[in-house]
């Protein structure tokens, strides 16, 4: 080994020892920053951060008509109406950020966006992030080909292969039925996979599947009876959000629900409920 290499390696060794020593040394002394930051966190720190950055970034994955690409090419949908109103009130820009369902939590943790829209609250996710109050409650449903003769959950389970978006809250529930699960990045892709013959049915939230059936008459919706899956859909936020900011988000949601603007937005976007399914349902 040349003399230069020995010198460089010695310097690197000293630096590494110094860094490691400093890291463990600060750990032994104990962190006193926790109490300081929790005091600051109780003061609306998240809201302050949004105001400072001048924009409210919302992660949106594709689940039309609730969330998806809008006519102007940006991501949006009726589900994010409370967030748009909140951005207006804060005087910041509403910035949609395209995301995939399986990366919503990772995107929040990485700071890619401030809020994750139309995100189901599950206990596994709640260990990593926080959730707002419920924005919408949906029922899970099957989407099948109209000529398939699949009319119930038992028929689908017998048929054997189900497509669905990975990273969703109902993955485990459907997996536990004993069917073969074909994962995809989004619900529309799962529908495409089924149409290509790769699966017998798709499981997802009723509004998204009803939208697919409206666009393609060869598809029908099967509502599980009794209901297989009922889920609260919320907004996801980072786990260190302060209580005051979370309260403000919840009030924004509650206001949009109470004044009817959220219901109107859902109706305008054509969000289908079990009562309005009509001839989209399999006979």
């Amino acid at each position, binding site marked *: 080994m040349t003399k230069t290499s020995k010198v460089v390696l010695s310097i690197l060794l000293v630096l590494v020892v110094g860094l490691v020593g400093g890291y463990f040394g600060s750990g032994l002394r104990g962190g006193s920053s926790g109490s300081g930051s929790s005091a600051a966190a109780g003061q609306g720190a998240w809201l302050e951060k949004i105001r400072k950055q001048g924009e409210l970034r919302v992660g949106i994955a594709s689940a039309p008509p609730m969330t998806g690409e809008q006519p102007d090419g940006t991501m949006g949908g009726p589900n994010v109406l409370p967030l748009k109103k909140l951005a207006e009130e804060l005087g910041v820009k509403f910035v949609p950020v395209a995301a995939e369902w399986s990366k919503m939590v990772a995107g929040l943790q990485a700071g*890619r966006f401030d809020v994750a829209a139309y995100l189901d609250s599950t206990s596994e996710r709640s260990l990593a992030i926080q959730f707002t109050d419920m924005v919408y409650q949906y029922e899970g449903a099957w989407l099948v080909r109209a000529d398939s003769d699949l009319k119930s959950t038992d028929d689908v389970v017998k048929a054997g292969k189900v497509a669905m978006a990975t990273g969703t809250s109902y993955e485990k529930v459907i997996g536990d039925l004993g069917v073969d699960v074909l994962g995809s990045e989004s619900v529309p892709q799962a529908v495409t996979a089924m149409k290509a013959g790769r699966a017998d049915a798709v499981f997802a939230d009723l509004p998204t599947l009803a939208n697919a059936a409206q666009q393609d008459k060869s598809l029908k919706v099967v509502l599980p009876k009794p209901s297989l899956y009922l889920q609260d859909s919320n907004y996801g936020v980072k786990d260190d959000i302060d209580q005051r900011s979370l309260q403000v988000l919840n009030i924004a949601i509650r206001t949009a629900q109470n004044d009817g603007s959220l219901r109107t937005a859902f109706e305008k976007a054509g969000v289908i409920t079990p009562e309005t399914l009509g001839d989209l349902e399999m006979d």
Partner: protein
Amino acid sequence: MDYNFDWSVVTSNFPRLLEAMGMTIQITIIVIVLSMALAVPLALLRMSKIEVVRWAAQLYIEIFRCTPLLVQLFWIYYVLPPLTGITIPGMLSAIIALTANLTAFMAEAYRSGFQAVPEEQVEAGEMLRLNRWQQIRHIIIPQALRQQLPVIMSLNISIFKDTALVSTIAVADLMFTANKIASESYRALEVLSTAALMYFIIAFPASLVLSKIERNMLEGNKKGSTKKTLLRPKLAVAGKMGASS
């Protein structure tokens, strides 16, 4: 086949696809230019006589050659922000990841080219009292690049196709846009076939140029070394510079 084609979804979204193709080409050009520049010093570091420098360069190259590009993209997009507290925008993350990856491969291509330059030519440069930088600039790099041109072009064509991976971090390139249109219109066959055709239309001419270059090099090798090389004019310049110093 009883599939009902509906090409109107492609015609109505063609401007969006073209715009997205523009983004793909833009990312490709930026990545290629940056990588071709950064790979030269990396290749030279890889050939350094100082072991530590050589090991560091080799470590960089091995990390980026031995991990999948998709993992590198996700790491820079999702893992780097919580680690460093710095959130880099999506497009910049994509450019950094692709550039870092291509630079590693390009550096190895350059290195093999540099090492293929006959030692006698470098010695001739020393005899003409060229310093190390002049030897690299006038003797080694021109010949090495010419030698490695097929490999370099092949890498560049590959990176053009690999830009499709940036769609996974929500960068609005052709793949991302095509995927979105296909998802929301449920017309994957028409839209994705069109996207594949658009990639092909760009990459195929480059591939033809590459084949032509390879054929010319083969013919040049068959005819022997009587053809002019790049070295002669450069040696003439170097000779004048040596005489005037």
